[in-house]
């Protein structure tokens, strides 16, 4: 492989009001290289890439493409120069076909009409050349997430991308799909394409990257060869201190059954049955993890257990007591704590202060209020205590919850739920979007709550999180529990079950 540089970014600086997102960052990428950009959330990876892709303008610094200085005023300029980006949140239009999505903006024409046949033909050619199997005529709303990602990659290739930016590409994939993606990346690499691989997952970076550049708080820390780098050395560079990557925990001491779900059936708001006869128990002092690909009934299951959604059939028992016609309020009062999967939309009222957010459950009871009269001073006093106990940083009781970082927002949610001393704690994707340091804290906290004797139900799309935290693992596939395992099961086995027990047929 030639060591020819295709891209150099020199001394990039970008300030946003209040923060320096990139501070004198250098990055160089060689032809045919997979270059990982590693860093925590907010380290400046996305900002750097958005500058490269023409979405932001750097305040200082320069970009050299094949040795020539370039300036991008818009994504269109960057695309024209051969840079493609696959965003973390896919930029696809569900109601349009795969081919339409790919050619959008650079459509083949026949006169003034859109030449659909040529579009489909070219997409088919391209997908065969890079073995990215997708059906050009399928609607995007009908294809799987893994296929959506291929469409995104095809979109970049169709525009003649030589440098491909993949922003957290494995975040939405199953282990199998991630494996397929790595195959695709290798075939692109063999074709001479350069890939910038943004991630905060150490394992996959070590698997796929040739070189790794670590960013921390907007600064470039180092660029290292894969050979010689270890998870521990990369984590240290990312966080700036030694990080405990493994969750330390003693074997579980399961006690009484505190949460019992029996033959639960739940329909989503469109009337489609999403949970189809799920039964399981969670005992005091154990963590039960539910693994599964997004959209297999996790949300509906949680919502039914926490009383946010009505179930069609089945029962939910908390500490042996069946709750009929459960509402969220009844469930809270029965001792179910809930860390919702989307802290910003369901966990917090972002405009409210931390103190108000913490009081969301108990505002209507003494000591928070009496005879319909709220005592704000008591709210603030209690919030102060909780903030100290849970080490929430970046604001006091009266600061708005929306101003906190993701990790600290999550701490507020967790603190609120745990402070009520629940018997059962339901943690839905508790570390989604958090950085290594915050994940470490939350994992330790969840284990220590288990050791306090709470029954913990963990739902996560991150298989690694499920495997490292759970004492028992259930696999949810199309609304049914298709497997139960002890945590020493292999990732491959669970991965297969997450896809319904068989390899997904190539589309």
């Amino acid at each position, binding site marked *: 492989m030639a060591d020819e540089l295709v891209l150099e970014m020199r001394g990039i600086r970008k300030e946003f009001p209040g923060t320096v997102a990139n501070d004198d960052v250098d990055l160089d990428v060689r032809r045919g290289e997979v270059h990982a950009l590693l860093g925590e959330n907010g380290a400046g990876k996305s900002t750097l890439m958005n500058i490269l892709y023409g979405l932001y303008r750097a305040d200082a610094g320069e970009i050299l493409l094949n040795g020539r200085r370039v300036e991008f005023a818009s994504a*269109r300029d960057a695309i024209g120069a051969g840079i493609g980006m696959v965003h973390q949140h896919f930029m696809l239009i569900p109601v*349009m076909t795969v081919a339409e999505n790919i050619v959008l903006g650079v459509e083949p024409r026949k006169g003034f009409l*859109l030449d659909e046949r040529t579009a489909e033909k070219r997409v088919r050619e391209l997908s065969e050349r890079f073995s990215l199997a997708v059906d050009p005529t399928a609607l995007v709303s009908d294809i799987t997430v893994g296929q959506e990602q291929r469409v995104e990659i095809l979109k970049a290739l169709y525009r003649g991308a030589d440098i491909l930016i993949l922003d957290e590409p494995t975040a939405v994939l199953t282990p199998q799909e991630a494996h397929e993606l790595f195959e695709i990346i290798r075939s692109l690499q063999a074709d001479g394409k350069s890939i910038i691989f943004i991630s905060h997952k150490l394992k996959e970076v070590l698997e796929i990257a040739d070189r790794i550049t670590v960013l921390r708080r907007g600064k470039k820390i180092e660029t290292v060869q894969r050979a010689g780098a270890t998870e521990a050395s990369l984590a240290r560079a990312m966080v700036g201190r030694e990080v405990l990557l493994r969750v330390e925990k003693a074997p579980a001491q399961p006690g009484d059954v505190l949460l019992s779900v029996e033959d639960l059936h739940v329909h989503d708001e469109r009337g489609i049955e999403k949970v189809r006869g799920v039964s399981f128990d969670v005992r005091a002092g154990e963590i039960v993890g539910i693994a599964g690909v997004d959209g297999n009934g996790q949300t509906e299951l949680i919502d039914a257990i926490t009383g946010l959604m009505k179930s069609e059939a089945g029962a939910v028992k908390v500490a042996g007591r069946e709750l009929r016609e459960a509402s969220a309020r009844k469930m809270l009062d029965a001792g179910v704590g809930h860390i919702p999967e989307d802290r910003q939309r369901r966990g917090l009222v972002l405009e409210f202060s931390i103190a108000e957010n913490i009081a969301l459950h108990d505002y209507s009871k003494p000591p928070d209020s009496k005879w319909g009269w709220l005592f704000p001073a008591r709210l603030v006093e209690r919030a102060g205590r909780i903030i100290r106990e849970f080490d929430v940083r970046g604001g006091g009781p009266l600061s708005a919850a929306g101003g906190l970082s993701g990790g600290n927002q999550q701490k507020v949610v967790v603190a609120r739920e745990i402070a009520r001393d629940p018997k059962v704690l339901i943690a839905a994707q508790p570390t989604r979007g958090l950085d290594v340091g915050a994940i470490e804290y939350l994992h330790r906290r969840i284990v220590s709550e288990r050791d306090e004797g709470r029954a913990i139900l963990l739902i996560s799309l991150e298989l690694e999180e499920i495997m490292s935290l759970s004492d028992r693992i259930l696999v949810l596939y199309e609304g049914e529990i298709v497997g139960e395992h002890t945590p020493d099961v292999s990732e491959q086995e669970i991965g297969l079950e997450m896809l319904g027990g068989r390899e997904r047929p190539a589309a």
Partner: protein
Amino acid sequence: MSWAPQTRQTPVGKWLRNPVATGYTGMALGVFAAFLGIPPFTSRTATWSLIVGIIAIMCGIATVTRGRKRLGLGAIATGIGGIGLGYLATRSSVDNLNIVFNASLIAQTFAFATPLVFAAIGGMFSERSGVVNIGLEGMMLMGAFWGVWGADVGGSWVVGLLVGMAIGAVLALVYAVFAIHLRADQIVGGTAVNFLALGITGYFFFQLYHGNYVSQGVSTIPNIKLPWISGLHFLGPAIGNLNLMIWVSFMLVIASYIVVFKTPIGLRIRACGEHPRAADTVGINVYAVRYGAVVLSGVLAAAGGVYLSDGFGGGTFNDNMTAGRGFIALAAMIFGNWRPAGAFAAALLFGFSSAIALRLQVYSPSASTLFNVLPYVLTLIAVAGVIGRTVAPAADGKPYRKQ
């Protein structure tokens, strides 16, 4: 489909198994049942309506049992309605029926529908790009006034049409700045446009014409006389002498279908209305597309307005001349599921109900008022999803903020 057992199927058998086909056939039959009692059929017993209506209801039941509940219920409802209306028609005298239902009813339906078609197609462009435009009413009203003014001052309906469309474009541009760049609430902004137009046209109508009718003899948009058709028995009065703008509206429907669904620019417009960020990341200028679409909607709505005053109205204007037609056009667009042909069909239906209402005025003013409400009732039914839910573009009404 490969998994289905391969059995020999007659076309009829296939049709019977398809709930969508039976559902729509049921509805068509239900409507037909109502028509049996009126000219040109003028069945004098309710039996025929009853028979056809029952077939419609059976189609509906077949549809319901095959899983398409809403569609089937819709077919059953039209069947029952068809029987009822067919029966009512037999109670009326043939003379009365001949006055209300004759070939010129078709011409009148087109005449009432055309302003709606223009505005609805305009609204479709705007909403397909992601901007809700309830200011259609105001843009139409401006077109109506300035169109007549242009024809009066410029001496030609061509000038009137151009002036009206230009003013519509300017008003739409003002709205676009608020809705797109300033990210104002689009409902509030659109309402403001409507009141602004009402005020401006009212003021200038008083200033320039003292609130009276525009002077006589203004050049009006001509009718197209088709010599080889106008002499025919039924077609002659129906389409032999339609206004130029009516024919233009037919072409507009076809052209807008091609533009929206068959051209690159249409793909881009729809992309901006569905997922503007996705459009942005592939280098499409979302703001430019939305400005273009909103201005086009203003031009088209205003063209509908010019037709209203200088074509249909014969060169007159009066205060608040559009009287809610912009909103009905909006309803037609929604009823038509943001598609040109759908909007056109809905506009025709609404035009038909207006034409009927006008004729019924002679017999029963209250019934006629009731017919004028029909568009809104139908729109409510459509929005509530009785006949398959209408689906708006995903980013419709959401201002786009560039990163």
